[in-house]
């Protein structure tokens, strides 16, 4: 009875993990720029891989194989986040321009410093203590001091 339940639970986990993993791979192909692609891949690398390993873990049980699976998923989770962070930072410093939706709603590529300022403005205006004058002053400041890209 318990074994049957574990088998069905493992099937469910494997199915859900497969779906999430394929969704992440599709996002890797269809997203517009590198940062959104990273966002899509992170779905597959956390939820997809997590559910797949959980499904295998339910089959393996508390054995040496199960311990190895736990170590694999822990290593994947830690190294995946660190590698993604380094990749995003290197891309920003290399001058890759993030594609953002402007005020008109059109997708345009903009400079990295400008993108960071836009995101900061968004966060500031969503908080109740927003001040429109300082908002605008901050925006013009960063526009003057844009970091030049390496290329």
């Amino acid at each position: 009875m318990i074994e049957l339940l574990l088998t069905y639970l493992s099937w469910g986990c494997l199915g859900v993990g497969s779906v999430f993993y394929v969704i992440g791979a599709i996002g890797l192909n269809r997203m517009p720029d590198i940062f959104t692609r990273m966002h899509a891949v992170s779905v597959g690398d956390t939820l997809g891989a997590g559910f797949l390993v959980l499904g295998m873990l339910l089959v393996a049980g508390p054995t040496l194989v199960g311990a190895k699976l736990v170590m694999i998923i822990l290593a994947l989770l830690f190294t995946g986040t660190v590698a993604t962070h380094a990749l995003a930072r290197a891309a920003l410093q290399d001058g890759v321009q993030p594609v953002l939706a402007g005020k008109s709603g059109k997708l345009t590529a903009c400079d990295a410093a400008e993108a960071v300022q836009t995101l900061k403005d968004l966060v500031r205006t969503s908080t109740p203590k927003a001040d429109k004058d300082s908002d605008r002053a901050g925006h013009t400041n960063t526009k003057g001091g844009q970091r030049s890209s390496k290329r």
Partner: protein
Amino acid sequence: MFEVATIAVLIALTLAVIRATRGPTIFDRLLAANSVGTGAILLLSLFGFLTHRPEFLDIGLTYVLLNMIGTFAVLKFFRHGALGHVGDEDERTKIL
């Protein structure tokens, strides 16, 4: 059910390879390569369970470490042009 998961991982690997060949910047290719590494680890584990011989997991564990080291090596090479570079002063002190 392991068959379904294996086929799903194979489809994801194919899509990642397509992105690696199409990718406009080097970072797209690197992201796809990292994704292929993760897929290879999952494929190794799933194939072991599929053939009732889950002894490939040690290879998978080694592959996780190799994957991250490889990504960092390529990242450092394309940022500085050399693997032995110590890093710029402003990059170490200034946070974006």
